[in-house]
């Protein structure tokens, strides 16, 4: 029972991070039918920038409370990632708005490689440890344990997702985003500046990615210039699982993927008689991706089939 509950907690925490990143993929796909494969790298940049700020602050002012230091890291990483998202859209995607859809896909991969290399040049190839600034408290629930960091990740992720739903459903920008997603041409006839709405979508998605990047590095205790690749692929799988283009789908897909990974890693040893271990954790995301694409390409909540991904 305690192992089950433990995996459930771990899966939910991990899944809420996947959900935040998956939202970025799904929002951009919903509006442009474009997979922004540089999105994982934006997450990585969020982690790296915040770690740089946190590291510098921890050196300069060692007495500062950890939460404050973390807040400063986020306060820098979020705008940096937003600017990065804006820049990528402007430079790599907007000029190709009317090009065949393979073209922006290729520039997306190009942008990820560039971002990885920039990060490598700035921060090097080694793993960067997340300084031990956060409260290390753990709480026991029914034989399982949950850390302060995990609680913070869960609460923050839920708050962010609720805010996002409110923005998309209730605000003028949200209505413009949904209208643009349904018909760019008609939205422009309503007076919607479609380019601005698309740019806003990238900016919002990038802000979520920044937060998710900080969460991941705080959770695993490290960051690395290549971390965005796997994280991005997993979040993309989560978005496809939920039904790409669908916000609720990205949230559901993220949580499910987190749970599948967590339970998979927890029980794979028992199931294979010790033949495969928990280091096979990363395999599950791709099993899920393949299974969804084969059996239900529109995803769990997606109404439309992904025509031209």
């Amino acid at each position, binding site marked *: 029972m305690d192992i089950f509950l433990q995996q459930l907690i771990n899966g939910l925490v991990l899944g809420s991070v996947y959900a935040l990143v998956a939202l970025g993929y799904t929002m951009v796909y919903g509006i442009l039918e474009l997979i922004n494969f540089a999105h994982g790298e934006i997450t990585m940049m969020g982690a790296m920038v915040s770690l740089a700020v946190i590291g510098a602050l921890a050196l300069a002012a060692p007495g500062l409370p950890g939460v404050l230091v973390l807040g400063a890291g986020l306060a820098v990483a979020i705008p940096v990632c937003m600017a990065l998202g804006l820049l990528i859209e402007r430079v790599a995607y907007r000029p190709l708005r009317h090009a065949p859809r393979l073209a922006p896909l290729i520039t997306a991969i190009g942008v990820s490689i560039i971002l990885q290399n920039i990060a490598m040049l700035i921060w090097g190839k080694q793993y960067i440890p997340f300084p031990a600034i956060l409260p290390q408290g753990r709480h026991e629930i029914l034989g399982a344990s949950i850390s302060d960091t995990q609680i913070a990740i869960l609460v923050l992720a839920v708050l962010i997702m609720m805010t996002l739903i409110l923005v998309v459903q209730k605000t003028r920008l949200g*209505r413009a985003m949904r209208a643009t997603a349904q018909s760019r041409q008609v939205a422009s006839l309503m007076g*919607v500046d479609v380019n601005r709405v698309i740019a806003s979508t990238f900016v919002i998605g990038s802000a979520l990615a920044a937060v998710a990047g900080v969460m991941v590095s705080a959770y695993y205790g490290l960051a690395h210039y290549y971390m965005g690749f796997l994280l991005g692929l997993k979040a993309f799988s989560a978005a496809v699982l939920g039904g790409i283009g669908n916000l609720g789908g990205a949230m559901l897909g993220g949580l499910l993927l987190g749970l599948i990974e967590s339970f998979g890693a927890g029980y794979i040893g028992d199931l294979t008689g010790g033949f495969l271990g928990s280091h096979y954790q990363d395999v599950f995301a791709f099993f899920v991706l393949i299974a969804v694409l084969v059996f239900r390409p529109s995803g769990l909540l997606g109404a439309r089939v992904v025509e031209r991904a």
Partner: protein
Amino acid sequence: MSALLSISQLSVAYGGIQAVRDLSLEVAPGEMVCLIGANGAGKTTTLKAISGLIAPQAGSVHFDGQALTRLPAHEVARRGLTLVPEGRGVFPRMSVVENLMMGAYTRRDRATIARDLDQVYALLPRLTERRAQLAGLLSGGEQQMLALGRAMMARPRLLLLDEPSMGLAPLMVQAVFDIIRQIAAGDVAVLLVEQNAHLALKTCARGYVLENGVVTLSGMSADLSANPAVRQAYLGE
């Protein structure tokens, strides 16, 4: 009399094809004007060029004395000129009321928007019952009404209508054109594009005939309806 919309020598090329050539056209404030012609004559292209969806090759479009030429569509929409596109273009995954509110997207005056919404519901009672329904679930005629109501929410001075009768049952066509006439009675100018020339000439005071991208005839609807060439080509006689 100064024209509300004044198009002069407009030429539009579309993927290497000359769709519209040297088109000149005027609409006075509050006037109802139709543009008739066969399929592919360049009617839709003309409306798209006016509303900024495609950039013209040459010529100019002036609205209320201001040049619209080469403004993007969203800027044109903000100047009081609203296109109801061919095939209605409602947002299928938005509710009726959300579609209507999209029409008022550029407006910030909450109180008058609420009043206009009530007026649209009064004009289109069928929509009132379905205000929470997704627009994609409405019938074709209801979608056309919604598109008209949405256009009214922008408080336009000129309404561009692209084939509002397309795909509708005869009774529904009547209902839609009744609404168009009511809208025009409220001092909104209308430029109507229609393949149904009979209906268009009956509805509008003046008309232009477009053939292969060129205006071949223009004048009062009564004169056009009496013209043997128009009768033969467009009125099926």
